[in-house]
């Protein structure tokens, strides 16, 4: 071990070269061996290795004969494959290392010279992009789809049926999670790709791959937008049940549990059959999955399945008004809170879910602690969303909506400064988002909060804003309630006739929506205003 210079740290390429040579010597193409190697050299798996890889590759391949260059490319390819599947360490970094290694190997494995290796690497690259944590998720999924499509140019059904089926299956997964493009269409593409894969992956010939693809097909049906939702959920359940014929608990415990989890979700959402039965089934199925996904062995999957179970319990609680279910759900969610990596999308989801569960319990309990904790959870979720977060958009839109509900609640609680701040934040955030209905709702809630505070000017302003947007969206209920709010404020301010005109329209709107209770309530206000007008007239004559 020679060290150059005085007190200088070793140059990164030097360490990286050493690491890659050791990898070459000790590891064959065996994942177990590789995992051991990575585990004992975990300190070497860092940013500097990632930075050095291209330099190392250039140094190794410079002025080399084609066969030697091929060997180096093979080394990088193997390294990419193995590090991609290494389950420990920093997953983000492992995926970056894999992507870099593949891209370097592709300099040698060109499409013309090595079509098969090239296609395989495109497929693997697709997988790595699909799981990638760095960068924007939407963009990464596009890269994954592009890579799979390149692979399929070589992997044709005729020439490489098995590889073709594998890539189709992978492609279907990418379409399932795709963010860009029309979601409806993406899900159809996912289904189509699964069905193509199943032409080769038959139950007899490739039982395991068949089961995997059935599971994926089930997922695509679970989220499908086209067709009848009830029917799609039946198709999803059927596909999961097929998968479970191969994925038995004994032979494939992890996969069995995974599919059980998916099946549970399908039952939880199921429309056909009795809802209570479906929820029972969902809860049972989730509980089975939890027998394999223990906290110790699969912390992340355990946390997710806790969340799923909690969701089902919350649903059941809303059906039966059973307080115990809600309590259980909250404690399940609470137990799992510390599992996801802080700031990850799972972390944000779990905080958000926790906040929702608590604010739901608050509706029953009216316990300010629940509200306080919910607010806390939402705040944690909000704080964790950074601009680099890859699911930011989706969550960002869901959160302001909750903020506005929570905000109006706080206002009613008397914590109006805090509540109003939340409402105004949410209005502000939703004003630029792609969800005008949520924006309109937040405007309405803000109007109501101001009305509650007897700030008539602002109440009127926000009700008018909500009304305008609801009208634009042709949301009849929204129109009726904003008119009711606006009318009430105008009456309170003494603009009786102007207010009554709005109230009358609101009454009519509520009747058309077959909401006689609300109509009667608003009509009551109208009558009161009417009496006030009559009183004024009489007084004028007296």
């Amino acid at each position: 071990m020679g060290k150059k210079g005085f007190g200088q740290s070793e140059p990164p390429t030097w360490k990286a070269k050493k690491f890659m040579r050791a990898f070459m010597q000790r590891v064959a193409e065996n994942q177990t061996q590789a995992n051991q190697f990575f585990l004992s050299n975990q300190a070497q798996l860092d940013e500097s290795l990632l930075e050095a890889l291209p330099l190392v590759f250039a140094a190794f391949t410079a002025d080399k004969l084609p066969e030697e260059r091929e060997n180096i490319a093979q080394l990088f390819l193997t390294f990419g494959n193995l590090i991609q599947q290494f389950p420990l360490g920093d997953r983000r970094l492992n995926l970056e290392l894999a992507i870099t290694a593949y891209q370097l190997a592709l300099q040698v494995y060109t499409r013309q010279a090595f079509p098969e290796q090239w296609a395989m690497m495109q497929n693997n690259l697709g997988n790595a992009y699909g799981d990638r944590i760095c960068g924007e998720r939407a963009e990464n999924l596009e890269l994954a789809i592009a890579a799979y499509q390149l692979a399929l140019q070589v992997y044709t059904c005729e020439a490489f049926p098995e590889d073709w089926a594998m890539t189709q299956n992978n492609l279907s997964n990418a379409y399932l999670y795709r963010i860009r493009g029309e979601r409806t269409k993406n899900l159809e593409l996912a289904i189509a790709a699964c069905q193509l894969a199943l032409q080769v992956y038959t139950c007899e010939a490739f039982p395991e791959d068949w089961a995997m693809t059935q599971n994926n097909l089930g997922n695509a049906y679970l989220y499908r937008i086209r067709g009848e939702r009830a029917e799609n959920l039946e198709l999803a359940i059927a596909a999961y049940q097929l998968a479970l014929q191969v994925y038995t608990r004994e032979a494939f415990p992890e996969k069995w549990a995974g599919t059980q989890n998916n099946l549970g979700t399908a039952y939880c959402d199921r429309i056909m059959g009795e809802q209570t039965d479906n929820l029972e089934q969902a809860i049972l199925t989730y509980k089975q999955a939890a027998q394999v996904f223990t906290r110790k062995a699969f912390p992340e999957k355990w946390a997710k399945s806790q969340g799923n179970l909690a969701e089902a319990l919350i649903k059941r609680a809303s059906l039966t008004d059973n307080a115990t279910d809600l309590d259980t759900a909250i404690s399940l969610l609470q137990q799992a809170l510390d599992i996801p990596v802080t700031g990850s999308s799972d972390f944000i989801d779990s905080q958000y879910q926790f906040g929702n569960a608590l604010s739901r319990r608050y509706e029953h309990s009216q316990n300010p602690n629940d509200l306080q904790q919910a607010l806390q959870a939402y705040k944690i979720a909000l704080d964790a969303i950074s601009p680099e977060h890859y699911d930011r958009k989706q969550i960002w839109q869901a959160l302001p909506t909750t903020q506005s509900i929570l905000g109006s609640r706080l206002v009613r609680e008397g914590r109006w400064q805090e509540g109003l701040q939340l409402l105004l934040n949410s209005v502000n955030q939703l004003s630029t988002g792609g969800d005008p209905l949520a924006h309109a709702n937040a405007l309405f809630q803000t109007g109501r909060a101001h009305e509650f505070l007897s700030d008539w000017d602002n109440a009127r302003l926000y009700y008018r804003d909500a009304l305008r947007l609801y009208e634009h969206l042709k949301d009849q209920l929204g129109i009726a309630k904003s008119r009711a709010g606006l009318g009430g404020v105008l009456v309170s301010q003494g603009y009786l006739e102007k207010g009554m005109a709005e109230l009358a329209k609101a009454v009519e709107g509520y009747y058309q929506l077959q909401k006689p209770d609300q109509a009667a309530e608003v009509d009551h206000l109208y009558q009161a205003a009417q009496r006030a007008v009559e009183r004024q007239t009489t007084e004028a004559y007296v």
Partner: protein
Amino acid sequence: MTTADDIFDQSFSNIQRLGLREIPFTESPIDLRSETLQRIFTGRQNELRQVFNLFQSRERRRILVYGRLGIGKSAFLLEVLSVLRRKRPKMLTTYISLPVNLDLATTALIALAREMADDDWAQQQLYQMGIPTEKILRERSSEISANMGLGAKAGEKDLPITKPQYPTVSLDTLLERAQAKYPDGVLIAIDDLDKQNPSVVRQLMHDAQGMLKGRAWFLLTGHPMGMTGDLLTSERGLFDLQLKLEELDLLTTYQMLINYLSSARIDNDCTDPRDPRSVLPFLPETAEEFCQASLGKPRLFNRLGNTILVTAADLEAERITPEVLAQGLKAAAPTLRQQAALNVQEERVRALLQQRRSLSDDTMTIADLEQLGFRSFNEVLPILERLEEADLAHQLNQDDAKVFAPIPLPSADDELLPEENI
């Protein structure tokens, strides 16, 4: 070749040609010396009477003065203070502009401590907050003629202040000490509450209820919206008097012009409105036209007046004839726009307002909003208020909607005289 000195002299003689020592118009009453304010403050008799009636009682009172931007709230406050200083020497009066991010108790504490230069404990409080104390000593030494002893208004807002831990308690202690010296009590005037977000102000008020009901008199200026109909102010009776300042009528505006001009005119202090000399260098007709154009809004009056006199001086005019006035008013719109330094968004709103002649939350369509890149009126409102602040728009007195209209001024590229006022 003209030297800079020559230009200065020329500029001075241009003003002198108009018979004036200086241009009397100013945007902010805070810059005025007490005796100048006394000369130019006009009207508001009813409002002053209401306020002074309260001061005939020993009972401590809380007064809220509210009204639109540029309506003269600060001037009103300063006038009240200046009268009290003359008439109630045994009452300590203090004035402060509400700094950003500061609670009312700390603000009041600062205001009071600054006026108590001889009180070591008060000075120590200021010192602990990082507020220089020297200046106050100097100002106190020339109490009567000092410009209200207020210090620089703008700079004060930027001071990083270490808030005291228990401002209400500190304030109470200080008030106790002050009352020992001033048997007629202590008045704390806090200005510019309307420069902050109404919801922040509401919270400030809420937090300061204990203080407001405590030992001192309070005189506050506030936002026209969201304070008057407020739960706290109306239902809990936080204020003994809520005084709304409205636009001045034409006669009062005319008298105000007379007062301003006579405060700066050379060799002529005629203030009789029936005497045409009272409005020189204006002619009675141009004086009236100018008053009409200023819509009874003191700040707009000052801004327009300034532009008109500058234009007249540039034209080397001796009198403000209809032609000179037309030139001056024509210069006003571009000057106001230039001073406002609007961004693209604000400019778009201004252009739409100009085109439509009025914008309101009641009548604006979603298409209008989308044209501006918005979905709701509440996003446009701050921009319209910004235009109002810059006197490029004004809010009409309609209480069931927020209606904004452009300030009717002739545009720079046509030759029309100002349109009739609304």
